[in-house]
């Protein structure tokens, strides 16, 4: 046997006797992710699985009722109102928030020439982030001081000779909620957009300027397409944050607010108070399914644009 043949045989022996399994790096990653996955399983997947199970059983979880909970939910007028309001709120708020926060990000960035930090830019950035730090209870108090029947806004309207507005007892409540949501979350989204803008290479803009592109053309053909991944992330986070506005609405207007701001969370809260667990679980499962489909569609759209 030649030396080469002996070497190949040796190599093959080593190859055959090498231990099968994950490479060392992957094993380390799995070990580090395990606590997080365990928490996810314990505090999310297990309860969600139980929710799906309970949606097919009665409140005590002992008698199988099939799809009765689902049909009851779909035919329930309160659910229809809450779902319509929630959909309307999302369709109005998310685009508005994305546009406003993008504009703020562009303006703040414009105060930072050549990508460097400036005092004014930092000041504006911090100011727009402050609403996120305001506690919900403070927000509610502010809301009441401003929008109560005897509040500051109505006092101003009366002073200018106008009639008072019942902000929380009329359809105006919806726009108060939208304004609060946008005000509270614009700063957070602005930071996300800023991160996306910082990731766009300056050389693209320089090359475009050499070719004679104006500011609008740079924005339309360089900035916007480059921000698509950020758009996906920001939109998803905005969608999830939109459900948190229930806290302010509940603390100001209670479990049964004006029809225009009666959201799905109000309905879930009231059903839990009445121990209507099977309907609650059925509605929660349907909501989760709709949100999952929405997010998957969004990701598919963004992926197709990437390609």
């Amino acid at each position: 046997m030649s030396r080469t043949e002996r070497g190949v045989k040796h190599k093959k022996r080593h190859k055959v006797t090498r231990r099968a399994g994950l490479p060392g790096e992957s094993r380390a990653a799995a070990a580090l992710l395990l606590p997080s996955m365990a928490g996810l399983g314990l505090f999310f997947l297990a309860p969600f699985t139980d929710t799906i199970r309970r949606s097919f059983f009665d409140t005590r979880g002992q008698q199988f009722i099939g799809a009765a909970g689902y049909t009851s939910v779909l035919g329930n007028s309160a659910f229809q109102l809450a779902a319509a309001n929630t959909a309307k709120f999302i369709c109005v708020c998310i685009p508005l928030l994305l546009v406003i926060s993008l504009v703020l990000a562009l303006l703040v960035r414009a105060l930072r020439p050549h990508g460097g930090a400036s005092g004014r830019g930092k000041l504006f950035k911090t100011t727009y982030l402050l609403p996120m730090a305001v506690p919900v209870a403070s927000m509610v108090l502010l809301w009441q001081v401003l929008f109560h029947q005897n509040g500051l806004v109505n006092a101003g309207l009366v002073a200018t000779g106008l009639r008072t507005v019942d902000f929380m007892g009329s359809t105006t409540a919806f726009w108060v909620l939208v304004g609060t949501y946008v005000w509270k979350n614009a700063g957070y989204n602005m930071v996300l957009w800023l991160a996306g803008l910082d990731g766009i290479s300056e050389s693209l803009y320089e090359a475009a300027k050499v070719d004679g592109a104006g500011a609008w053309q740079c924005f339309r053909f360089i900035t916007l397409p480059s921000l698509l991944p950020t758009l996906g992330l920001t939109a998803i986070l905005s969608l999830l944050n939109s459900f948190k506005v229930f806290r302010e609405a509940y603390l100001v207007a209670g479990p049964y607010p004006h029809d225009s701001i009666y959201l799905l969370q109000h309905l879930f809260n009231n059903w839990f108070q009445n121990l209507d667990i099977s309907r609650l679980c059925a509605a929660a499962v349907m909501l989760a399914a709709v949100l999952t489909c929405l997010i998957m569609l969004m990701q598919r759209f963004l992926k197709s644009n990437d390609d």
Partner: protein
Amino acid sequence: MYIGRSAGGAQTDDDIIRQLNTELVSGTGPDVLILDGLPIQSLIRQGMLSDLSGLVDESQYYGGILGAYAQDGKTWAYPTCFAANLMMQTPGAGGADIESIQTLEDMRPLLTDTASVEFGGYLHLFETMYTAVSPQMFPKDTEVNEDILRAFLSLTKDAVDAQGITGTEYDDTFGGVTDSDEAVGGLEIYTTPPSLGYFANDTMSSADHAVASIHRYMDVMFSLYKPGAGRAVIAPLPGGVFMPKIIAAVPAGAANAEGGRAFVKAMLEGQTQEELRNVGLDGFAMRRGVDAGLYQESIGRPFLRAAHRRGLRVFR
């Protein structure tokens, strides 16, 4: 296990109900539930309560009230006392004679006359007058009689306009407490019997406490009484509604269901019904004859003789 709120705590009623519901759904709830303030019909519909049929001899109790939570031949809860809405009017106060009032509409002259009665706010007005129409407004649990609802809202709106009511009794943000207990023109409407304990002290017996609720009316009359004007009149609010209170039930699947049933039964026994007076029960006993018996026993008591001599006529 006790799920409730200690005095001065920051918990709201919703927090307590949420905690209780969590315990019930997880199967670790209490063995006895007092259902006042809870969504009783929803609990019955969800099958969360045990059947208590046959627990007591119902002939010994006011059947119309005791069976308030009986459905489909089963009894899901027993009220251990009840309240009755009463009107009391000083003689010569003017306005309609309350003994002739049969419907809520008959009360219109009184409700729209601030010389007769005063309400502190929307909530006070609603809570006072709602029981006068609730049986007709909700003939079945899931239906509302819109005609009755419209008539009720129309009457209460007229009362609001006539009395110049502009809000609830107390506004958390802007203050403004209105004392809703003042009787301006001599008409008092009690949505629950006045609280016991007016004469409360360590030497009081159950009998004394039992009739203290009746003589609380006299406390009001002392402030309204005009010598020589005649005796005050007490009449039931239209609607004939008796309100069950301290409604006891045993949750389905309770760990100690037998102990729970025994507790509910004990609350309805004669001696317990009498002793409940000692703890300031805001209502009348469910068991027949308990209140009447204690009242008869009290007649001979010295400090009440003067009150009885005034000829108070009491609703029973």
